[in-house]
C-alpha cells in the first residue's frame, strides 16, 4: 500500500487523525530543535553549569504570576561595555557602572550578583566595590576587594579575569550582614529578626522589618553600583554584568542549577522520537524476520528460534535492562540495543504462528500449485496477512521504548551526553523537587513523555481498520 493511501485512510478515523496531528506537531518541533541546537548540546550547554549561573534557581515559569495573587519579581540582567559615569579623583579615577531597577512585585529577588571580565592594569591593582542603594536611603556596601596583584615574573600590563570572569553572588558576606543590622537598627526602631538577616540576607537587603518579624519586600527604586577604582589611565575593564535574580523565569521555569527547563525539555523531544521510532523499527524488523524464518523454515531452525523466543519472552525486562546498562555504561545506543534485544519475541511468536497457519492454508497451497517461488509466497501471500499486526506492533512498541528509557534515566542510568525527559525528572527527584513542590520541574517532562507515547497509541488504534481492507468502511471509532 502506498504511504499516501495509508495516511489518507488513517486520517479518516478519529484516533488516527489525532495521532497524525500530534505526530506532525512533534516532528515539526523536533526539526526546529535539530536545526537550531548545537549537535553536542548535552555536554556543551545543558551539562555546563557556568552557562546557567546567572539564572534564578528552581523558580516557576513567568506566566504563573498571572495566576497567583502574589506578584512575582522579574528577572533582570544588564550588561555594560562602558561605565555609566567616571569620577576623577586625585590618585586616579573611579569608573561607575549603575543598574537602576524598581521592585514592584511581592517577592524578593532570589539573589543579586555581578560579573566582571577582562581587567587590565599597569601599576596598582584596581579596587572593585559593589554598593546597593535602597529606596529608603540605605546604602550598603556589598563587596569590596582589590584585584589580585602581580605575580612574580609577570610583566605589565597585568591581565585578569580573561578566561573566567570574576563572578560574585552578593549579600552573603558577614560584613554585609553587620551593615544591614546596623542600618536597620538605626532606621527602623523595632525588633528585627537577626536570624533572617543571617540566614537569608537577600530578604533583608530588599525588605523592611515587618510586624511578624519577617522582611516584606520594600517596593521602589534600587540602584546597584559596581565601582572600579583605578590609578592609571591605561588601566582597562571589559564587560560588566549585573543580575537581579527574579522569582520566576521563562516559559517553563528553571531547575536547581538555573537551567531553562523549556530549552532542555525541547531538546528531549527529538531524542524521545528517535528512541521510540528507532527501537520499534529495529525490533519489529527483527521480530518479523525471525518469525517468518521460524515459521517457514521449520525443523531445527524453528526449534532454536522458538526456544530462544520462549526464554527471552520470560525474562523480566527492567531488572536485566538495569543490569546491562549498569555494566555496559550509560550510552543511548546501548540502551536502544538492549531494548531491541528483549522486545522481539512477542512478534516472532505471533508471526510464526500466523505463518504456520497460512503456510498450510488454501491461499498458499494455491500459490504453490501455481508454481510460485518461496519468496513470492512469503511476500505476496504471507506478509500481507501479517502486515497489520506488524504495523500495529511497530507503532505499539514505540511508547514502551520511550517509557523504558525514561525509567532507566530516572534511575540515573540515562546517557548524560544526551539529556532526556527522564533525566530531567531524575535530577528533580534527586534534589527533592517533588517534596518541595516544584511542580514545573516534574510535571511537564512526564506529561511530554505521556503525550509522545499517546501519539503512537492513537496511531496504533487508527491503523487497525487501515491495514485490513476488509475492515475499511466499518469503523468502530466515530469520535
Amino acid at each position, binding site marked *: 500500500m502506498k504511504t499516501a493511501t495509508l495516511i489518507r485512510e488513517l486520517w479518516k478515523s478519529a484516533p488516527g487523525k489525532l495521532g497524525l496531528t500530534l505526530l506532525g506537531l512533534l516532528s515539526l518541533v523536533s526539526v526546529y530543535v535539530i536545526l537550531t541546537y548545537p549537535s553536542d548540546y548535552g555536554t556543551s550547554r545543558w551539562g555546563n553549569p557556568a552557562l546557567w549561573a546567572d539564572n534564578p534557581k528552581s523558580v516557576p515559569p513567568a506566566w504563573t504570576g498571572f495566576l497567583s495573587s502574589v506578584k512575582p519579581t522579574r528577572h533582570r540582567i544588564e550588561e555594560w561595555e562602558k561605565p555609566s559615569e567616571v569620577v576623577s579623583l586625585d590618585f586616579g579615577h573611579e569608573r561607575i557602572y549603575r543598574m537602576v531597577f524598581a521592585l514592584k512585585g511581592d517577592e524578593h529577588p532570589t539573589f543579586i550578583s555581578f560579573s566582571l571580565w577582562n581587567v587590565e592594569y599597569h601599576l596598582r591593582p584596581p579596587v572593585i566595590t559593589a554598593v546597593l542603594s535602597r529606596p529608603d536611603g540605605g546604602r550598603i556596601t556589598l563587596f569590596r576587594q582589590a584585584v589580585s596583584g602581580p605575580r612574580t615574573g609577570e610583566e605589565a600590563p597585568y591581565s585578569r579575569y580573561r578566561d573566567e570572569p570574576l563572578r560574585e553572588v552578593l549579600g552573603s558576606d558577614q560584613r554585609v550582614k553587620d551593615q544591614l543590622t546596623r542600618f536597620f537598627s538605626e532606621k527602623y526602631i523595632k525588633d528585627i529578626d537577626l536570624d533572617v538577616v543571617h540566614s537569608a540576607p537577600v530578604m533583608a537587603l530588599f525588605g523592611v522589618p515587618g510586624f511578624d518579624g519577617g522582611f516584606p519586600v520594600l517596593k521602589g527604586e534600587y540602584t546597584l553600583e559596581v565601582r572600579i577604582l583605578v590609578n592609571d589611565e591605561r588601566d582597562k575593564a571589559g564587560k560588566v554584568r549585573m543580575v537581579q535574580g527574579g522569582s520566576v523565569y521563562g516559559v517553563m521555569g528553571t531547575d536547581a542549577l538555573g537551567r531553562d527547563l523549556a530549552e532542555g525539555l525541547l531538546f528531549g523531544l527529538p531524542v524521545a522520537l528517535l528512541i521510540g521510532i528507532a527501537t520499534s523499527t529495529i525490533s519489529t524488523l527483527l521480530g518479523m524476520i525471525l518469525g517468518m524464518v521460524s515459521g517457514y523454515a521449520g525443523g531445527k531452525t524453528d526449534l532454536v528460534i522458538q526456544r530462544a523466543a520462549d526464554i527471552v519472552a520470560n525474562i523480566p525486562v527492567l531488572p536485566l535492562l538495569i543490569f546491562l546498562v549498569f555494566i555496559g555504561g550509560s550510552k543511548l545506543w546501548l540502551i536502544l540495543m538492549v531494548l531491541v534485544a528483549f522486545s522481539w519475541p512477542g512478534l516472532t511468536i505471533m508471526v510464526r504462528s500466523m505463518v504456520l497457519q497460512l503456510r498450510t*492454508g*488454501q*491461499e498458499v*497451497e494455491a500459490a504453490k*500449485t501455481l*508454481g*510460485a517461488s518461496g519468496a513470492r509466497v512469503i511476500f505476496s501471500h504471507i506478509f*500481507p*496477512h501479517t502486515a497489520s499486526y506488524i504495523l500495529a506492533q511497530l507503532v505499539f512498541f514505540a511508547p514502551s521504548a520511550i517509557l523504558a528509557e525514561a525509567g532507566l534515566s530516572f534511575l540515573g542510568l540515562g546517557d548524560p551526553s544526551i539529556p532526556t525527559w527522564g533525566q530531567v525528572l531524575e535530577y528533580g527527584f534527586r534534589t527533592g523537587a517533588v517534596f518541595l513542590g516544584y511542580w514545573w520541574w516534574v510535571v511537564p517532562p512526564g506529561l511530554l513523555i505521556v503525550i509522545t507515547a499517546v501519539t503512537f497509541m492513537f496511531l496504533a488504534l487508527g491503523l487497525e481498520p487501515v491495514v485490513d*481492507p476488509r475492515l475499511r468502511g466499518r469503523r468502530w471509532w466515530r469520535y
Partner: protein
Amino acid sequence: MGEVIETRELKVYFFLRRSLFRQRAVKAVDGVSLRIERGETLALVGESGSGKTTLGRALLRLVELRDGVVLFRGRDITGLKGKGLKSFRRSAQAIFQDPYSSISPYMNIYDIVSEPLLIHRVKEKEKREKMLFRALEQVNLLPVREILYKYPHNLSGGQRQRVSIARAMVLEPEFVVADEPVSMVDASNRAEILYLLRNLQKEKSITFLYITHDLASARHFSDRIAVMYLGTIVETGITGRVIEEPLHPYTRGLLASVPEPDPLNRKKLRPLIPGEPPSASDVPSGCPFHPRCSDFIERLCDKARPSLKELSPERSVACHLF
C-alpha cells in the same frame, strides 16, 4: 487416450508428536493406486478424514510422499525439483474448497488472475491481458472490465469461486484437481459452477480429479468414481454403475445416506452406517471399515486387509465379499 496421471501404492503419512520421544503416524493416504485418463473426470468420494484431500494434494506434489510414485504423462514426478517441478506446475492446477480463503484478500481480481502468468514468465503485457480476459470470460465473470479492479470481499461466494477457477485455467492446464469446489457455494449456484467446470473440461479435454463428499453431484459431473475410506480406495468404477449397483458395504451405506427431495422420506427411517469413522491415526486392523460394516465376517474382516480386486474392466472393489 492414455492416462495423464497415475499413482502406484501411494502413501502419505503425517506425524503427530505425542510426547518428547513418541510420535504417531496419521496414515492419511495408505497405499492408493489409481489412474485418470486424458479428458476424463474422476470423482474421488469420501467423508471428512478419508484422506481424499491429501490424495489430491499428493498428486499436485504439495505434500511429501511416504512411499509410492506419481506418474504424470508417464513420467515419474515424485522427485521433481526446480525447473522440472515448475513446468509440471504449469500443467497441473487446483481449485480449492473455500472461495473465502483460497484467494488473497489483499489483491484485486486483475492481480489474482494474472499471478500465474507472472510466475510462468508470460512477459508481454498485451499477451498477459489477453489471456486474463479470456480466462475471466470463460468463467462468466462479466463484464470483465468491471470485475478486474474489484477486491474479493466485494464479490459473492459464487463469483469468488469463479475467480479461482479463472486463475487455475489461465495457464490452460492439462490436469486439474478440484477439491470440493462447490461445497461452500449456495445451492442455487452450485450447478452453474459445476457446468462451467465440465464445459471447460470438455472443450480443452482437461483431466479432472473432482474431490467431493456429494455423491449426487459426482453422478452428474464425473465419468468414474473412486470411493475412499480411511486412506484407501474401497471401490472404483464407471459412475453410473457405482451409483446404481454399489458393491462395497460402505458405498452402499453412503448412497443410502444421501437425501433426495421426496416427501415420502419422512415416513421411514433411513438405512445407515452405524458409528463414526475412527481417526486416521488409529486405523482398525484388517479391513478398516469392519467395525461399522453390516456384512462383517468374523476372523476374516478384522484380520486380513482386503486388496482392491478388479472384478471387471473398470470395476474394482476392496472387500472380502468379492
